[in-house]
């Protein structure tokens, strides 16, 4: 039952992203059409969805020029097709460029059907009697004839349902059958997973160590300790990353701290190795990124542990242990930590999937081809299908870890077996 619900959830997430995207067209294989001065960019419509209004062509969504788009929407609502509108725009541009016809420049922006028809009639009548300028009047005649030939406002609306012309379905199938893209996704997932494992280990051990250090430090300097932790907790991770790259991966500032391989060096390896190969043979490339990711996280974990520990210090069993002569580190490290670890299990369970998307910035700074880098590239290339897959993947991992951490919590605290958590 749990598995069914999980699958349902992931499907729902994918579908909702699809619904969102279906309202606004995706773009695969973008084209550019030059209509004189303005470039109308549009792509092959990917998402045909029956919830769109009948007259609406999803290519409209990709028109960049706001004024032109407004006109397109207005005209298509009155019965023009997208292709007709495009050729209309080209003709209007041509007319506005002819000398002496500046008054017709507004043809590009008129939004009323009747006004356009009136203007074209007016244009025909404005031709000078006799052939004073045969070339110019010939041009105008040709354009008017073409404009009339476009057949404005006489289209039959089409409705696209799920079917053979459903381009979304086609692009989805082609994505699944495209081995290169699937490999890319699998490789990115593998890398992010390993990076997250490293960061998870560093942040949990670092956070716990910091908390134990804090609780055994003198009470007088604790506020300073805590303030430093607070600052580390909100420090943007990308600043840390770039500064660390400057200092720890080159000998420009100091030859003695050039400990780690620089950003981009992971790309030189080829990157088609197996999980274990990356983990054990190329792991040192991922240590600096993982360390930097774990800095704010370990500060957060330490602050969490600390707030639990300070409440716990007032309880009678701690006094008893102290009176029995146990050292502070033993009391805190063994007894207190164990008692306050229950809420932390859920936190750790959520931490790992949060890391999977949290390494997004780090991967971009270090040029590691993980999930974050891939999603950034997908944004740059408008690859919506890849982004949807990444979202679904990360969401799936999140759900699995969430469930898993609840299981672990029930195992750790048998009282919870009778309750719903």
């Amino acid at each position, binding site marked *: 039952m749990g598995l069914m619900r999980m699958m349902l959830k992931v499907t729902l997430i994918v579908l909702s992203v699809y619904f969102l995207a279906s309202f606004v067209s995706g773009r695969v294989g973008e084209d550019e059409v030059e209509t004189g001065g303005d470039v109308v960019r549009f792509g092959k419509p990917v998402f045909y969805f029956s919830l769109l209004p009948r007259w609406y062509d999803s290519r409209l969504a990709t028109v960049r020029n706001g004024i032109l788009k407004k006109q397109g929407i207005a005209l298509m609502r009155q019965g023009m097709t997208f292709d007709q509108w495009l050729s209309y725009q080209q003709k209007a541009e041509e007319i506005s460029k002819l000398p002496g016809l500046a008054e017709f420049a507004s043809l590009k922006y008129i939004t009323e059907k009747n006004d356009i028809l009136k203007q074209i009639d007016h244009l025909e009548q404005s031709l000078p009697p006799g052939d004073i300028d045969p070339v110019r009047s010939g041009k105008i005649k040709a354009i008017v004839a073409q404009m009339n030939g476009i057949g404005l406002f006489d289209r039959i609306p089409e409705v696209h349902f799920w079917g053979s012309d459903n381009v979304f379905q086609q692009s989805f199938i082609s994505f699944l059958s495209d081995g290169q893209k699937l490999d890319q996704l699998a490789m990115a997932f593998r890398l992010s997973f390993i990076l997250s494992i490293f960061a998870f280990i560093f942040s949990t051990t670092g956070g716990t160590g910091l908390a134990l250090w804090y609780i055994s430090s003198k009470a007088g300097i604790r506020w300073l300790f805590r303030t430093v932790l607070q600052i580390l907790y909100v420090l943007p991770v990308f600043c840390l990353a770039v500064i660390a790259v400057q200092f720890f991966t080159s000998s420009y500032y100091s030859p003695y701290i050039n400990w780690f391989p620089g950003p981009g060096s992971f790309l030189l390896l080829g990157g088609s190795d197996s999980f274990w190969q990356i983990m054990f043979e190329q792991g040192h490339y991922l240590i600096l990124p993982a360390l930097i990711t774990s800095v704010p996280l370990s500060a957060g974990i330490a602050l969490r542990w600390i707030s639990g520990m300070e409440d716990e210090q007032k309880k009678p069993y701690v006094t008893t242990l102290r009176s029995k002569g146990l050292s502070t580190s033993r009391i805190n490290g063994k007894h207190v930590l164990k008692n306050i670890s229950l809420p932390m299990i859920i936190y750790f369970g959520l931490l790992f999937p949060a890391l999977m998307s949290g390494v997004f910035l780090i991967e971009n700074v270090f040029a590691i081809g993980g999930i974050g880098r891939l999603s950034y590239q997908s944004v740059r290339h408008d690859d919506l299908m890849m*982004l949807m897959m990444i979202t679904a993947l990360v969401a799936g991992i999140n759900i699995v870890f969430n469930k898993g951490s609840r299981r672990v919590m029930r195992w750790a605290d048998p009282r919870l077996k009778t309750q719903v958590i």
Partner: protein
Amino acid sequence: MGRPEAENPGDLMVWPRSLRGKNLLWIVPLIYLLLKIIINPQPVIGIGGGKVTIGFFNFRDDQPAGADDYDFVIRPVMRISPYETNLDIRNPLPPLSRDGRGMLHVLGTDHLGRDVLAGFVSGFELALLIALLVSLGTGFVSMIMGVQGAYFARFPLKVSAVEAGMWILVAILIALSFGWFLIGALSIISLSGIILCAVLVLSGIRYVSKNKKRKYRLPVNALNRQAQEFFQPVPDLILLLVLITVFDQISLWGLILILILLRLPAGSWYLQGQATQFIHQKHIDQARTMGFSGTRIIFRHVMPLMAPSVRVFMGLTASRAVLSESALAFLGIGPTGGMMSWGSMIRLGLSDLTMWWVSLFPVLGLVAVAMLFMYGSRVDK
């Protein structure tokens, strides 16, 4: 920002003892005012000559305004625009140095001769605007959603079968019209007309069927939980990227709207949990007995009690919004990537550490603002 959220950040952090339990947020507008008086591309306030100039939130101004003829004017100490380049200088100027024209650059300049202090103030304005609007929007809407969820969990809203059907139909209709509004197929007037009609129809049906038997419970209380369960696994930064891709070139207002929407499920669920404890108090029962309407109870009797938790939530939201925006601007994605925002200044400064002052001050500002928002609104027990 890829880290699990604290339930109550106030429990997590403690300021130094002297600052404990004090609201520190008033520092932010004060500093902002001071900075705008020191450096501003426009006069701070100028009245006269048939126009009024107010030099606040003018982070888009390319050039400082020309000679002005005002009757009453408060001039800034330095009139520099964040986008004003000075290509005469060969190298970026360090802090507290003067350029060839004798103009003082307090925090130095970057490689194009743009003043870092002016850029810092512009980034501060952007961060303030985003923090303010996102936290206010999210706080207000999710408070209403949370309180009504808690209220209708205790006092269920019962409807007849016809009414339930109408509710579902109206929900689909409004979702559809909103989608059409997004793609430009529907104007804002038609959208508000549709929403108004829907509200009128629903309240009319409720009024007509006043004395009818109502059997079905509207699942208003479960809605917040369902939304939170649905959106919790979706990583927010990647979702933000998807939305930016889908909506191509979003404006600053679009980014603010998206940040608000992304935060709503978590906020409404968290605040519903907080509101549930107030809903079960005695004075709510007394108000019900006195015959007050649900709206009045929600707005007058529960919402004032919610102020501390909403304040904590809003502070957390503000700091997260500022950090998300700066992360996007750092990568050059989104509307603020091309502006003088802290994220883009950090990217510029970190590309060349010999001009460390370009990135140091934005980093300090980001950390300070994020910390102030996150812990400054803390309510001491």
